[in-house]
Structure formats: C-alpha cells, structure tokens
C-alpha cells in the first residue's frame, strides 16, 4: 500500500513539474552561430522591491535586445529569499552548470562570493556585478551606484535642508555585511565630520525589508526625540506607509531610492529629497553589458560604471511617477 502511495506521489509530482516547466534548451548541432543565450541575474534577496524593479528591467532588456540583435535572449532569475551568501554561491554554481552565458550578481558578502565568481570566470562564464560589488574578484564589470559618493551626497543634502544650527541626525543601515551599505555609511560619516554642528546617531542596522526598517526607524525616533534629520542611505523604511503619518517638516529626511511607494512621502512633504538609484537600470543595463560582452564580444568602456543619482523632489515627483508607470506596467 505504501508502495502504491509512493508511486502516486511520483506521478503527481511529475505531472506538476511538467505543467510548470518551460521548454528545455534544445541541443544544437555543431555551433555555427549561437541562436540562444541565457543570462542569469542573482540579487541579494526577494523581499526588497529594488530588486524586483531590477528583475523587470532585465526582462525588458532581454526582450528588447532579442529583437534588436535577432537572437533569443533569456533571463533567468535566481535569488535567495533572504540575504544568504551561501545560497548565492550555490545558485552561481548551478547557473554555471546549466550553461548560462553570463551572470550579473549583487553580492551579499563580497568575500564569500569572490572565489565562486573566480571559478565561474575560469569556466568561461562572463560575470559582472551590480549594486553590491565584489571588487577583488575576476568580474569584468560593475554597474551600480558609487556608494561612497552617494553617502556623501545624502549627508550633504540633508545638512542643506536642515540649515544652520545644531542638529541631530539619525543614520539607518541595512544588512551590516553588505559592502555597499558599509561604503555608503562610511561616505555619510566622512561627510558629516565636516560639519561640527551635526551629531550622528547610529548606524542602526536592520533587515533590508520594509517592515523591519520602518519599525527600526520609528523605534529610534521615539527613543531619541531630539533627532531632527534622517540621512537614509537606504530607504527601505519608506516602502511602507508607516512613516507617512509623521508631521511634514518636523523631521527632515533625505533618502536614497525613489521607488513608486516612496513618492507619496515627497508629495506630502515628509521627505524633502529622494535620490533615485537606477534600480530598473540595474537589470536593464546588466543585460545590455552582458549582451555586449558575450554576443557582440565588446568589452565595456570602463569596468566601474556608475549610474547617476537624479534628484526627485516636489517639482518632478509627478514626472517620476509617469516614468515608473512606463517601466513597471501593472
């Protein structure tokens, strides 16, 4: 009886797998010119909306470039649910075994991923990084934010908003182990040292999910009512409505990222300025760079490509919203 039950499971499983599986890659004869390419995107976690935007950017790029170059480009998304460097290494190894042509990865821990990236490159796979770099690895390119400059920028803009006089500034942080977060914090702290009237409280680390970050910010603000400015080098807290109820102008906020969920904050004046990370571009540009390297055999102009951080404030918040509607068709 048990045997029969097991057999039934297997049949059910195979039916399920068949139903959901896509087409397996075709075995091509002796390669003349490859018609099909697969690029993989490995982000840090599934919970942060910035990476979901990157995913869509990558999918769109794959579609656009397929049309433009006359080949079939497939984008495979493999991201751990939570920040887990070990799982990223596993995914990278499996992508390589799958025979992907290129990988773009945002590293949870640079040092853990460096040997895996090197091994992948050794086996002929093109690897680049986005958002969070592995600088000592053999990756051929990086596309992302200049984190140090970004940290400085945020702090500088916040000080401008706060104006003269003594101020206390809160500094939230995300995943402590992520290199990009650490770099931004270093930039912000470095900038803050130039202003003797500014006291910094933090950095306060939390999980890079909206709920955890928002809870952390609220907690710190309640415990430290003298904080009158937040230098959000990562604005996960603003992906929720939690802080919308703050009285606009009482506490000045300048933040990184301008995802659609954050735009109401600007409209209501709770947040003064947003500096938009090009999260959509992370995905789009990654595929472009990989396509250049693998299909067109063209190396990128510079290894480190920094994306600009355009300002979003009350004056152009509506335009930004329109842009998002174009990029993320609902």
């Amino acid at each position: 009886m048990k045997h029969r039950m097991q057999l039934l499971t297997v049949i059910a499983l195979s039916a399920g797998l068949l139903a959901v599986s896509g087409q397996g890659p075709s075995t091509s004869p002796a390669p003349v010119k490859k018609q099909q390419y697969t690029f993989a995107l490995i982000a840090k976690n599934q919970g942060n909306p910035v990476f979901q935007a990157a995913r869509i950017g990558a999918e769109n790029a794959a579609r656009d470039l397929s049309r433009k170059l006359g080949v079939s480009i497939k984008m495979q998304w493999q991201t751990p649910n939570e920040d887990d460097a070990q799982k990223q290494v596993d995914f990278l190894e499996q992508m390589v075994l799958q025979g992907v042509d290129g990988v773009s990865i945002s590293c949870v821990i640079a040092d853990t991923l460096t040997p895996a990236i090197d091994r992948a490159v050794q086996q002929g796979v093109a690897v680049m990084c986005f958002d969070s770099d592995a600088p000592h690895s053999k990756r051929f390119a990086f596309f992302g934010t200049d984190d140090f400059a970004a940290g400085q920028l945020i702090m500088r803009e916040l000080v401008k908003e706060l104006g003269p006089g003594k101020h206390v500034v809160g500094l939230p942080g995300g995943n402590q182990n992520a290199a990009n977060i650490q770099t931004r914090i270093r930039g912000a702290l470095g900038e803050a040292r130039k202003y003797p009237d500014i006291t910094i409280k933090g950095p306060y680390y939390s999980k890079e999910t909206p709920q955890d970050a928002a809870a952390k910010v609220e907690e710190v603000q309640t415990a430290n009512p003298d904080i009158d400015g937040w230098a959000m080098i990562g604005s996960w807290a603003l992906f929720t409505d939690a802080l919308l109820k703050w009285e606009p102008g009482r506490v000045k906020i300048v933040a990184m990222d301008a995802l659609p969920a954050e735009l109401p904050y600007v409209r209501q004046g709770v947040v003064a300025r947003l500096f938009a990370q090009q999260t959509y571009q992370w995905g789009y540009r990654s595929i472009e760079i990989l396509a250049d390297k693998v299909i067109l055999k063209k190396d990128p102009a510079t290894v480190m490509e920094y994306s600009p951080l355009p300002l979003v404030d009350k004056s152009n918040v509506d335009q930004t919203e329109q842009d998002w509607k174009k990029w993320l068709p609902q």
Partner: protein
Amino acid sequence: MPTELAAEPGIGKRQATARRFRRGMKETGLLGVVVALGLLLSVFGGSIQVRDRGTGETHTLNKFLRAENLDKLAKNTSFFAIMAVGATLVIITGGIDLSVGSIYCLAAVCGAMFLHRFGPQGAAAGSPAGWVVPAAILLCLGVGTLCGMLNGLGVVLLRVHPFVITLGTMAIFRGVAFVMTKAQAFTHFPTQFTDGLIRYQVGRNLYPVPMGIMIAVTLLAALYLRFTVTGRQIFAIGGNEQAARYSGLPVECVKLKVYAFSGLMAGVAALIMLGYYGAASSDAGKGYELDVIAAAVVGGASLLGGRGSALGALLGALIIQMINNGIIILEIDQNYSQIIIGAVIVVAVVLDRINTVARQRRLAQAAQPAPKTSERTTT
C-alpha cells in the same frame, strides 16, 4: 481456555525477518521516489554542450546526470541531511529543535574567527602549525555540542516544551554570533582546511568530502539507533514517555544526549560550510531549521515521536534538494519554487499520515479477540 493467535515463539524468526524487511520498506519507498525523480530530471532536463577547455572537443552531457551536477547536489544536500539526522533523533523522542540554524551559525562563526586568525590575512598569519586545523574542528564541534546541551538542559530542567525553549535559543545563539562578529564576515582561512580538506578536489571539479561526511554520519546514526542501548531508549521515550519513565529509563539523560547530538550535527554542517565556502557571517543558516525539519518529516519521522530513521532523514533532504535542483534545470520560474516544495512536504506528510492510520487500523483488527470472549473492564 480460549486462545488467541496461538503460535509458538519459534516461528517468530521467519516473521522477524519479514518484519525487518518491512521496516526497511519505509526507506525503500523513499528510495523509489529518489530514483523516480532522478529519472524524471534526467529525461526532461535535457542536455548541454560542454566544451572541454583542454582538448577543445565538445561533449553533450545530460544536465542532471553529469558528474558535476550530482556532486553539487550531494554537497547541497549534505548540510541539510546531516542536520536532519540530528533533528530526527530529537524528533523521535517527541521533541523538536528549532535552533539548529542558529547553532550552525554560531559554530560556523566561532570556527571562522579562529581560522581567520590563522589564515593568510589573520593576526597570527604565516604558515599555520599542524594543530590549527584539528583545533578548529574541535572548536566547531564543541560549540555545536555545547549549544545543544544548553537546549537539552532547558528542556529537562525548566520542563518547558522544547518548541518554546529552542525558539528562544534560536534567537539567543544568533544574537551571540552577531555580537561576536560585530556584523563582519570572516574569510580567508588556511588552505590546509579549505582546499586541503573539505574542498579536496578529485578529478575535474568534484568535491566528494561533504558527501562522504554525510554518508558516514548517517551510517553511524543508523547503527546507533539500531544497536545501542540509548538508541532503543530514544524510541521508547518517543513512543510513550510516561511508560518509559515507569520502566526505569533515564529519560532526562537521554533527552540531554539527543539535543547535544543535534547541536553536534549542526557543528559538523558548519565545518563543511566553512571549508567549502571559505567564509561565514552571522547571516549564515537563516531559515535552515525549517528545511531541516521538513527533510526529517519527509524522511518519515513522526512529529508525535516514536518513529524515524537516519537513512530516511538523508533521503528526505535529498528529495527536497532534488526538487530545488529540478526547478533550476527545468527552468521553472523561481517564484514557484516555494510553492512546489511546500506542496511536496504537505503531500509527503499526508501520505505518511494515511499510511499510519491504515497501519493502526490493521493493528486494531488484528487485536480483536474471538467474538465470544468477554473481557472485564472497569467502567
């Protein structure tokens, strides 16, 4: 005098062998699932063209069956299988250990900090003495066992349900790891430990050490459960703890042992992680406890206690990893992976439940005496 199933105990030998085979049947079912899944994946996974860098030839290799993929599969399974073996012993006694992921993390972090110190970039850099690697191994295993013993003491002394205790220690151990590492990741270990031991390479990109450790651990645990006193006591306590107590079994002692063992297994898995990935941080192993318990349950351990097997734990972990592997090979959208794995776990548990109920019904029918007999009961 009315007689029930009249048979001399001598006949028992044939029945005994039959029963032992039937017991093995449980794992035979799992083995069948593994084989079936393997067939499925090799048939539907397709093949891949691989260019041999050395000779320049291209080979066509089956995506699933290629040696490197199987090797990776075994390596990925090893973490969960080893911890699942530890968890199975705990589950057999009717308890549960939710803190395995955190013990894994803490053991890894302790080992990492130690190895980093003696690694190429550490404070005591330079060619490390011969005692460093064994010391690191002992440290990792020791931390794991100690954490496990703390869990055991909590369960035994505080008389709180293991779910609650290990829920608390889950947070405590990870918190300790976080404080110790000051949120940094530790890497750059002595190569004697990584490439020389755990990541020892055989042939082309094959790393058999994690798989070897997994098989050895499973074998030892299976023998322990079957042939030792404590193994028998573990099953008795899980089957009916009160009866075990009244039979004079040292219930508290045994529980302490199983929790310590579960911690030890987490330490072993942490060792493999350190050796293979060469880095550890306080993020390690987040959420692993649920994967481990899922593997144990799919492998036939009953959360009510009294049933389970080490081999089953390994096969359960293997099945779950094969599904993960299959999702990638078949290029199924990763968003569905959680749904699929969750469904598999539920199906496995439901089937197991159906089987248990059917077995109990068979037992009850066999226990019915002849209808003319009237027994006395107190009502």
